[in-house]
């Protein structure tokens, strides 16, 4: 899997982006202090990514990830609603919310028909196939 080859400034950041009606993408970064706390074992290495519906506050999906993974795809159970993600970690057996994302609306309804597909992409696919 490709990775960035240049270091990024160490900051706490969590961003939620739309991908399609059923999936959103989230990435996160930690400040050096927070990363050090994970490395020192103050937090358990496995974190939870929780997606919550902003309209009614309900928790929509939860997935577990390694704190260093930096990115994940979250299933979106109800299309066309607005969501917010949070990264939670365990300290001393209790869950703490460490990062919270921006609010993002999820697209509604199914994808468009295959024959409408982006033509330039079709040409590119041809050479790749």
């Amino acid at each position, binding site marked *: *899997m490709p990775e960035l*080859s240049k270091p990024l400034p160490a900051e706490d950041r969590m961003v939620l982006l739309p991908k399609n009606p059923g999936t959103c993408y989230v990435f996160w970064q930690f400040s050096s202090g927070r990363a050090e706390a994970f490395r020192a074992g103050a937090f358990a290495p496995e974190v939870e990514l929780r997606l919550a519906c902003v309209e009614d506050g309900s928790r929509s999906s939860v997935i577990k990830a390694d704190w260093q993974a930096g990115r994940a795809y979250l299933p979106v159970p109800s299309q066309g609603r607005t969501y917010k993600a949070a990264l939670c970690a365990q300290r001393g057996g209790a869950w703490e919310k460490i990062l919270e994302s921006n609010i993002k609306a999820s697209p509604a309804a199914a994808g468009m028909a295959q024959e409408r597909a982006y*033509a330039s992409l079709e040409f590119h696919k041809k050479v790749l196939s």
Partner: protein
Amino acid sequence: MSSRGSLMFLLHAHLPYVNHPQDSSFLEENWFFEAVVETYVPIISALERLAAEGIRPGVAISISPTLGAMLENEALEAKLQLYVESRLELLEKELERAQNEPTLLKTVSLYQKLYLEAAELLHKYSGDLITPLKALQHAGQIEIITTAATHAVLPLLARPEAVRAQLAVAAEDYADRFNCKASGFWLPECGYEPRLNSYLKLSGFNYTFTESHSVEFASTLAPNGVYSPYRTSNGVGLFARDAASSREVWSAQFGYPGDPAYREFYRDFGYDGNYDYIRPYLGTDGVRRPLGLKYYRITGSGADLSAKQYYDPDAAMARVEAHASDFLARRMKQTDDFYAARGTRPLIVSCYDAELFGHWWFEGPAFLETVIRKIRVERLPLQFVTPSEYLNSCQEPAELTPGISSWGENGYFDPWVNETNDFIYPAVYAATDKMIETANRFRNQDLSSLSARALNQAARETLLAQSSDWAFLLYIGSHSAYAKGRLEDHAANAVKLLGEVIEKRVDEQALAALEQKNSVFPRLDFRVFASVSKF
């Protein structure tokens, strides 16, 4: 004959900003040279021919700010001239080589005509192709609109300041380039979400375009489907792309460009020709690369490249004629069916990447010209309209909030957010967040000239990092190393410059080099990234 419906063509012309002034034969600069010769010059020539014949084309063209900057970049213009001269030199030799092969000779002659036309048009306008476009717009022949500053997929920019900067810079860039205010805004990749309405309005744009299913899945019922414009709650006009007319032209599989008589894109003389013979026309690295001379036709679906047959320009032009007739017959049936069902005249909105015409689909510019000419010559009951004309003459459009969508594969954001390219977003956001934070910090401060230059260049680098092209190239696996490098360089440049300003240690020599290389948006003011309460 009175019109039974209206056609709107929107050609979206965009290339990522590629400028490597220190390199005489940079591979990716060929994207620009090829697009100029194969797409922009043939389209401009066709529009000028039609206008000279008294046939008003009435098409809309979106020129991305990055493409506009390249079309006005004198160093690129000089390289373009060398590129055209080099191809003409090779074509002289090719005419000799093809003397005993009549079919090949016809194609070589066609290419010679293409490159001569490019040389003449570039000479006529002193290398600046914005000039004829501006003249065509000024004469009312076409309408030119703009798109986001560096073609960012706007729904993927979570920070409001970043979206506002992409639109505000585009609006200013257009006014500088075309000496008037832009009416329309092409959403990069047709990527729409409702929060964009306010940014479009506040940046002064009157209308935009969305994908078909944005209307199908709108918050309220769209009374005329994609066949009429709508308006957002704050009065921005919306045109929805018609799927049928798009598919016929777009699709390599189902559409006209896949016809066996048409030119095969992927078999290029740069890979076929004798190495020593073509070596002077390759880059300084000597590696085989496309030369833009493609002598074969598609031949048959699935045919191996080695089994392709020679291209026959006359046979291809016969297919253009047939396809233009077919396209118009289908549009007339569409308008008749809609009129019979609803009693009103429909508007059919067809949006395409401009580079499809000529670069990918070699015969595309001829198709476009033939379609426009046929409506007049055959007195067909259709008329081409530009977006502003239509909005000025139609009834008040119904209010609508389209659904989140794009014209990308599967209709949403999969091509720009997937496991091949998702790693870029931390870098994009690191630069963007730092840019906003620093713009807020320095927005009201008296700055030295050097600090202001560094902040303005950081803003350019941030905008360039946000371009949709890097994610797309990574997705399709084409020029991936270049795309990754560009993204990383722009994000790192922005973060570095901002840090230097904060620490009062700007490296003037390095800054000057970046200003020369990434020289888009000369009037850019970093404060465009500052947070403002009205958004």
